[in-house]
C-alpha cells in the first residue's frame, strides 16, 4: 500500500470523529428506549444502542 493511501486512510479513520458518531448513536438509542411517545421507537432502540456500542468498541482502537 502506498504512503499516500495509508495517509488518506488514516485521515478517514480518525478515532475522535468516529467516537462522536458512536456516542450520538448510543445516546439516541437510550432516548428511544426510555421515551414515552412511540412504541416503535422503543422496539428499535436496542438495535440502535447495540450498533452504537459495537461501533464504539471498534473505533476506540483507531489511531488518534
Amino acid at each position, binding site marked *: 500500500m502506498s504512503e499516500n493511501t495509508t495517509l488518506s486512510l488514516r485521515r478517514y479513520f480518525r478515532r475522535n470523529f468516529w*467516537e462522536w458518531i458512536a*456516542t450520538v448513536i*448510543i445516546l439516541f*438509542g*437510550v432516548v428511544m428506549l426510555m421515551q414515552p411517545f412511540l412504541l416503535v421507537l422503543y422496539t428499535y432502540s436496542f438495535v440502535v444502542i447495540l450498533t452504537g456500542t459495537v461501533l464504539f468498541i471498534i473505533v476506540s482502537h483507531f489511531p488518534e
Partner: protein
Amino acid sequence: MSRPSILQKIASSAAVATPAPVARQVRGLSDRAIAWLFVTPTILLLLAINIFPLIWTIQLSFTNYKANRAARGEKFIGLRNYERVLGDADIWISLQTTAHFLIWTMLLQVLLGFGLAWLLNKQFKGHSFWTTLILLPMMLSPAVVGNFWRFLYQPQIGLFNYIIAFFTGADPSSFQMLGDVNLAPWSIVIVDTWMWTPYIMLICLAGLRSIPDYIYEAAEVDRASKWRQFWSITVPMVLPFLMLAVLFRAIENFKMFDLVVELTNGGPGSVTELASINLKREAFEKWRTGYSSAFAIILFVTVFGVANIYVKALNAVKQR
C-alpha cells in the same frame, strides 16, 4: 530509622518466615510466572462469578428455558425473546418509570450535593460535625432506610406528612405519599435523594479541597469576580469528580431495586415498578427465564454503552 532500612527489615523477616520448600520452589520461577501466580486466582474468580453468568444469560436469552421447569429442558428460539421484550408495553412503561426516577434523582443529588460541598468547604466552626452528620444516611442499609421512610410517610403518624401539613396548612392525613399514583414516584425520588446526596457531596468536597489556594489568589490579583472564579476555576476543576460520582450513581439508580421494593414494591399498581423490579418479577414470579434473560441483556448493553460514553467524556475533561 530510615525508610529503606524498614523495608529491608520487613523483606528479610518475610524471607525468614517463608518455609524452605516454598522458598526453593519460588526461587526457580521467573518474575512473570510469579506475577501470574498472584493474578490467576482473581482471574478465575472473575470468570466464575462475572463472565460465566453473563455468557450463560446470553445463551438462555435465545431459549424458552423456565427455571421452575428445568426438567422440561430448553429449546432454541432465536431472537423471539428479544422481539417480545421490545414489543412489551409493560416493560416500556417500566423503563419510562426508571427514566423519571433517574433524571430527577441525578438532578436533585447533583444540585444539593454540590451545594452542600460548597458550604462545607467554607471552614466554619463545627464543619467536621456537620460533615459527619450529613454522611450518615449513606452509611445505612437500603432495607433500613426503606423501612423507616415507610413510617415517615405514614399518613396518620408519619413525620413527613406533618411537616408538609405545617408548611401548606393541609390536613396531614389528606394525602398518602406511598399510596397515591401521582405522589408515589416522587416519594422514591425523595428517599433516594436523601440517602445518596451525601455521596455526591463527599466526592465534590474532595474535588473542592484539591483546588490549590494560589489559583484563587491569582484570580483575585487579576480582579476576577467571585462569580467568574466559580465558573472559571471551581466548576472546571470539580467537574471530573462530579462526573465520576454521577456515573456511579446513574448506573446504580438504573439498577435500583432494594430501596424501592422496601418502600412501595412497585406499587400502587405499577407506577413505581422500575426496570429491575419488572425484571425480577419476570424471572422469579412468572419464571420466564429465557425472556427475562433477554431483558437483562438489553439493560446490560444499555448500561455498557452509556458507561463507554461517560469514560470518554471523563478522559476529555481530565485532559482539558
